[in-house]
């Protein structure tokens, strides 16, 4: 069982060691710091998505939460009356996470109360979010599409000067949400709902309430990720999250969480994030064009999903 749970950890370690040995300049301190800095925000948003995928659902709106958060965050930090005051950075952080939570609440209600399939509900909120991000961008940034010049204190969150800060934030979030999934009642009930919601309901699990909370967590963590991405890029860019979805969903699926729900976890997603970012980093260092990287990621997701199915059938071979 140990092997099956942590297969991706071994694959990651093998790739990592190959990277160290064969890819030149990979082992340099600058590159490793960069690699970990890039892992941090992806781990935060993918941890949130893992909760939703464990119920067999999906959350498209994470990308537009990242975009909208970065636009409003930049505006608050640079142009709004709030800019420059000591209160600016903490308040902006609260507002961005608040936006994520708001999206989460809307998605949660749509899926648990209105019984909408999660991929269409979050698709429509994603479209609304993306539209708002670019619209606010064109209004708030007076003509220019994006807005730079964020205060140093805020950019530190993205790893400028203190490269370890985003890694620390991501690790803390990972530990909290991994603990919550493995050790708390809520976490264990998620696995039950993911496998068979009717048995869960008969056993007294508040199915609707828990499903609602999954989306709130996913939205909130997407907000936190938006803060790190905006700080890292030092600018509010309305199209920040657009190309990220394959990385987010890829880390969850490649990590080993079953897209049909009920199996996997935040630990698997950590391995998925480490592995996927490693692939991008190594391919970049080898000078391979960006669109090859996209292609390889798509192929990895398919391969991981098929492997996962084979493992699951092996496990339940004696299924009556």
């Amino acid at each position: 069982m140990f092997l099956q749970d942590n297969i991706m950890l071994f694959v990651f370690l093998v790739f990592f060691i190959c990277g160290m040995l064969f890819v030149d300049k990979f082992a340099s301190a600058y590159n490793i710091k960069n690699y970990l800095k890039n892992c941090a925000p992806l781990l935060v948003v993918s941890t949130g998505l893992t909760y939703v995928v464990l119920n067999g659902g999906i959350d498209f709106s994470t990308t537009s939460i990242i975009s909208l958060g970065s636009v409003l965050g930049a505006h608050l930090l640079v142009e709004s009356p709030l800019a420059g005051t000591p209160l600016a950075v903490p308040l902006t952080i609260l507002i961005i996470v608040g936006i994520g939570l708001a999206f989460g609440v809307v998605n949660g209600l749509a899926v648990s109360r209105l019984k909408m399939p999660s991929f269409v509900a979050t698709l429509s909120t994603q479209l609304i979010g993306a539209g708002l991000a670019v619209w606010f961008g064109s209004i708030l940034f007076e003509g220019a599409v994006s807005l730079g010049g964020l205060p140093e204190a805020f950019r530190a969150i993205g790893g400028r000067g203190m490269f370890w800060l985003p890694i620390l934030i991501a690790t803390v979030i990972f530990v909290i949400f991994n603990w919550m999934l493995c050790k708390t009642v809520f976490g264990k009930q998620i696995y039950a709902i993911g496998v068979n919601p009717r048995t869960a309901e008969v056993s007294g699990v508040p199915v609707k309430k828990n499903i609602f909370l999954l989306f709130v967590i996913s939205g909130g963590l997407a907000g936190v990720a938006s803060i790190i991405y905006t700080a890292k890029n030092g600018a509010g860019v309305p199209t920040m999250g657009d190309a990220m979805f394959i990385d987010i969903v890829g880390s969850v699926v490649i990590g080993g969480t079953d897209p049909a729900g009920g199996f996997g976890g935040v630990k698997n997603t950590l391995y998925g994030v480490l592995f996927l970012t490693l692939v991008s980093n190594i391919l970049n260092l080898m000078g391979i064009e960006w669109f090859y990287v996209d292609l390889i990621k798509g192929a990895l997701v398919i391969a991981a999903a098929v492997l996962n199915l084979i493992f699951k059938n092996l496990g339940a071979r004696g299924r009556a």
Partner: protein
Amino acid sequence: MRKVTAVVLTIAMSLALAACGGKAEDTVTTEESGKTEEAENYTIGVAVDTLDTQFWIANYQAIKDRAEELGNITLVEAIASADANVQNQQIEDFIAQDVDAVICMASDGAAIAAAVDECNEAGIPIIMNNRPVVEGTADPDAQVLSDNKQMAYEEMKWFIEKSKEEGKSYKCLMLVGNLGDGNAVERRDGYQAAVDEFGEGVVEIVLSVPTEWDHEVALAGLQSGLASNPDIDMMILPSDFLWEPVQTALTEVGKWAPIGEENHVACISFDGDETGRQMMADGYCWADAAQSAALQGETCVDTALSLIKGESLPSRDIKDSGLLVTCDNFEEVKDSF
């Protein structure tokens, strides 16, 4: 319990690596300084946004040719497909590969600031190719730019004087590029300034249509714009990239005709790339502010070399004043751009 150990193992390992990475820091710098003396060979990282327009294809080709010509330059390339976040990561990877200089066509003028700061910290010169950084957000080592505003302003001024001579007045539809690109904003402001200053009663900008440098958005905007203002008889194209959708839209409403014919729509454009030259030759285009892609490409490589060698530049921004090609002077200048 074993699962918990696995988690602790990964986190401990990554932190340890980061720590030991710290020690490796100083060795890298010493090794780098040794390099410049013996081998003359330099590596330059070229961060490309997209190759969707002839201008960029010509500019990129010029960089490659120039590097080959000089012989001692190897290029490392990365295409970002219009994603600012991806481009920043690519430039960070350039720095990781200890490139000697970075030539960058910014996907987004504001977001590129982060990459410029990284280069400054790493002591690697970064040259902005044709797309400037948003003022005040960062300071690249050099910027090779077209003087967009001035070129657009001159072009519009010439067209207005020409129309005054011929006693014509126009209702104009202005296409606008991606507002995140400093060039698009400067060109729009240049055209607008010339119309405000001289265009009284001659040229009236009736509608401005955003294109996002995307053919489909441009075509949809043009079709609906022409349908809502059928009396439009002039168009401003901020780049020769937009000739495709313009030709499609005008053919559909039967207004795709060369100068002199009855339902001709006067067009003025920018870039002066192959398509622009073709349109001038076929008589569909009145004027084209040509920025020489090749010249700018070469200037980037030369500036990079001089920065690597530590020479100081006359000024940070190197302006390519470009060449105003009009239907009058087309015959004489058509080979020089």
